[in-house]
Structure formats: structure tokens, C-alpha cells
């Protein structure tokens, strides 16, 4: 693991690498080097994209994208091979207004539903994605639902609280 860290620091600039736990490493980088970093790690053997997630830091006015990669096994694992257990967490920040980012579909093929979900829940536009349509929601929202300034109770009271029961509607009409 230490030689991988040394190689990364010589080949890329602007990385901040820290150890989160015994088998977890965090790399913070600027947004232009994400695609190169992910394809570099894939060539080094980290070929399983586990998750693409997003944090909404509303106080800093930024969205933080998180990519977590890990290692598939080629053959039977050995009990003392440490390389198979590492998960690398890669983070980057993009601005909150007009959030756009590049898609990683060319590197990892299973990134498609994750990016669709982030598009509808956080409002991030991924350039180059073939189908950015609604995945789970049924309608479009003015503020994307998972952002911190979307107030769920107020939305519920406005939409569902205003629909009358059948008795009330009958009395209202008559």
C-alpha cells in the first residue's frame, strides 16, 4: 500500500492522501483529475466501483462527490494478502449553483444508475451520460429533494394537506 501511495504522489499533483482506518484510504483531489485518477487505479487492479455518493455542504456552498473503489479477486484470496481488502475513497468538490460534472461511464460501466439517481436527487448534470431521465421519482421538483434546503414537512403540508376528503368536497360544491 505504501508504494501505491508513493506512486500516486509522484504521478499526480494536488492530492491529499490520509488513512481513515486500517484498510481505508481517503484521497481528496481537484475535479479535473478525477477521470485520470480513476482509470489509473483501474489499471492498478481496483476494478470494482462500489458507490458514487454526494454530500451537501450548504455552509461552504459546495457539493462533494465521493467515489469508492475496491478490488475484485482474480483467484482464491490468501489470508495474508492485504491488497485485496483496501477500499479507496476519492472525494472532490463542485460548486452548488449550476452543478455540472463529467461522467465516468467509460471507465466503470456500472456507474450509470448511480449518476442518474444523483441527477434527480441533487440536481447535478453529468456531461456525456446517454440517458439522464427520471429513475425513481415520478415528477420534477423545483428544489432537488436531497438537498439541505428542501423542507419535507412544508412540502407535504402544501401538497397532501390541501387535498380535501370526499365529504368536504361534496359540501364545498353544494
Amino acid at each position, binding site marked *: 500500500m505504501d508504494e501505491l501511495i508513493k506512486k500516486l504522489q509522484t504521478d499526480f499533483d494536488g492530492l491529499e492522501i490520509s488513512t481513515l482506518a486500517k484498510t481505508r484510504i481517503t484521497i481528496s483531489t481537484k475535479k479535473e483529475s478525477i477521470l485520470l485518477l480513476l482509470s489509473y487505479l483501474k489499471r492498478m487492479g481496483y476494478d470494482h466501483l462500489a*458507490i458514487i455518493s454526494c454530500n451537501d455542504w450548504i455552509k461552504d456552498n459546495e457539493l462533494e462527490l465521493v467515489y*469508492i473503489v475496491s478490488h*475484485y479477486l482474480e483467484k482464491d484470496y490468501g489470508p495474508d494478502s492485504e491488497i485485496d481488502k483496501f477500499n479507496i475513497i476519492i472525494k472532490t468538490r463542485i460548486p452548488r449553483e449550476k452543478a455540472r460534472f463529467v461522467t465516468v461511464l467509460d471507465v466503470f460501466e456500472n456507474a450509470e444508475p448511480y449518476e442518474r439517481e444523483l441527477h434527480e436527487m441533487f440536481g447535478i448534470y453529468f456531461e456525456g451520460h446517454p440517458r439522464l431521465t427520471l429513475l425513481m421519482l415520478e415528477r420534477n421538483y423545483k428544489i432537488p429533494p436531497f438537498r439541505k434546503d*428542501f423542507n*419535507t414537512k412544508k412540502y407535504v403540508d402544501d401538497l397532501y394537506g390541501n387535498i380535501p376528503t370526499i365529504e368536504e368536497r361534496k359540501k364545498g360544491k353544494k
Partner: protein
Amino acid sequence: MRELELYFGPQHLGMVGNFSITLKVEGDKIIKADANPGYLHRGFEKLMEERTWMQNFPLVCRINVVEPDHMELIYSMGVEKLADIEVPERGKFLRSIYCEMARVNSHLFGLWAYSNMLGFDTVAHWAMYHRDLLLDRFEELTGGRVYHIYLRPGGVRRDFPEGFTTKLVETLHKIGGKVPDYNQTFFENSLFRKRAEGIGIVNLDEAKRMGAVGHILKANGVKYDIRKIEPYDAYDQVEFDIPTQTGADAYSRLLTIRDDMIESVHMIFKLIDKIPPEGDVYTKTPNPFKWTIPAGESYVRCESSRGELGLYIVSDGGEKPYRVHFNTPSYNHGLTVLEKALEGENIADVGNIMISLYVVAPEIDR
């Protein structure tokens, strides 16, 4: 021949839960499949940001209705990682026994779903009956048949009652004693082999590109199991094996499910012999009304009965989680792998392939 668009919609006998697929067919062959999830979406990850750390347990177990126990386990592990809590020895063994019982439970439910869809009603009724006998043990331990809130950050909530392990061993002998009948009626039946061999092939290269885990990899011969890669709880103190097969079709996946269930039953017997005779079952946590966890983030993983389950959890030092994101195995299997595995198959095999990929609908939508 013309192209036709069919809706294999939510109300269908061969559907696994509330999920729909849009199929473009030409004659009897499928050209393109589009999965359409979202019928069960409640926005869990947003709801969990409005409730405190301990108040989230009733929500978390309703993410996967067939197997709620691994959801409680992964959330407890995430909170323990953030707050630096250790589980005592006896608590670790009780947790592992409980999770293995849940695994047997879930595999019997999957066997009911698959054989009911194929039309083998006898095996379906047997599987549901044996699952009910196991649910009686869950009811004696926790008080509820379906949603048992038994795990907490730091261990389990209460100890096993008196005589529980003997009754559990009896029930498992009843289930295990019926396995030769299952084999003879279902798994070695030539009708089942004709319907499942060569259907829904997902070979190793495609599976790795599409992010598949669980039984899809085990049916290709790869022993990818988080209980061996990153052992948690008491799994490093008991010996067990990961069964694999080499065909990559629906038949091999069903065989690995059966072997996994038998291996879990043997594992419970071995774990019961090794429980430390006395000790605490949980470590004390602060007052749940005023519990703040220091800022940080973590990613934890465990092995549910469908594959690798992961949780990315972020805290900002407050009483409620800041961001929670579940990475469920059915997300990749139901959206990416399913669309690829259905190309070129017949319409009559859609339910067959979907249930053999072991997809369950609420895990996709959360």
C-alpha cells in the same frame, strides 16, 4: 416482423415485488429491456436525517422486507465505527447466530418465490412451512415475526432466554432433515433442469464489468464473500467454506443458494458449541436522547444473503446523521445486470431470470 412495446408491469404473477420492466419485443424474443424502479421509494436517506441515531432503527429495518436483520447489522456497524465502540465476546457470537438464522430464513423465502413462479407448488409449500417454524424461534427471541429490532450499537439488546439453543437445534434438524426430499423433488428433477439450464447466462467478464456481487460471482467459481475478506463479529473463530459452481446460468445460481443454506445450518451448530458461557452482551452507550457522535465518515461492509452490502455514513458532530447512503446488492443486479441478461431471451423466461438473479424490489428503491 414488427417491434412491439410490452409492459411487464407491477401487477404480475412472476414479478419479484413491486417493480416493472418495459420490454421491446419482436415476436417472442426480447430486444431491449428498461427497468423502471421507484414504486416503493420513500426517501429513506432524507428521512433518516431528521431523526436521532437511535430513533433510526425502526426505519432502517424496513428497507429490505425479506431480510431486515442485515440492515440493522450494517447500521449498527456504521455507528460503532464512527463512535469507536467495541462489542463484547458473547455479544459477537449472539450476533453471528442471529445473522445466520436470518440467512436461512431469506433463502427459504427465495426458494418459495422461485418454485411458485415455475409452477412447482409442492416445494413452495414445504419451503414456506419450514420458514414458519424458524419464525417461531424469532418470535420467542425478540417478540416479532417479521421486524425484530434486536441489534444495537455495541451488541445485542438482550440475552438468549433459557433453553433457546436446544429448541433452535431441534428446529434446524427438522429443516435439515428435509433436504434430501428437496433434492429429489426439485433440484434433481429433469423438468427443473430443462427450464433453468442455459438460461440467463452472466459470465465472469460481464459480471465484473457490471459490478455484480453475491451468487452471480459464486456461480462462476469466484469465492467473493465479505465474511472471509473482512471478517466481522465471530466469523474468524469458526470454520466454514464458500460453495461455488461453474456453470453461469440460473441452474448454478439456485444450486449455490441451496448449498449456502446448508452451510449456514452447519455454521449455527458450530457457533452454538463455542459461545462463551458468561459475559455482557452489549457495551453501554450514552443517553440516547442526548447522544452526539464526533464528526467523521466511514464505509463499512457486510455480507447479506444477496451479496455485499455497504454503508457510507457521515456525521458532523450532531445528534442526527448528516448523510447516509446504503449500497445494496440489488441495485446493481436489478438495474444493470438485468437489462443485459434479458437481451435475446424469450418472454416466458423473464420471471425465471429475475428471481434467479436474487433481486428484491425494496432494496433498489430504498
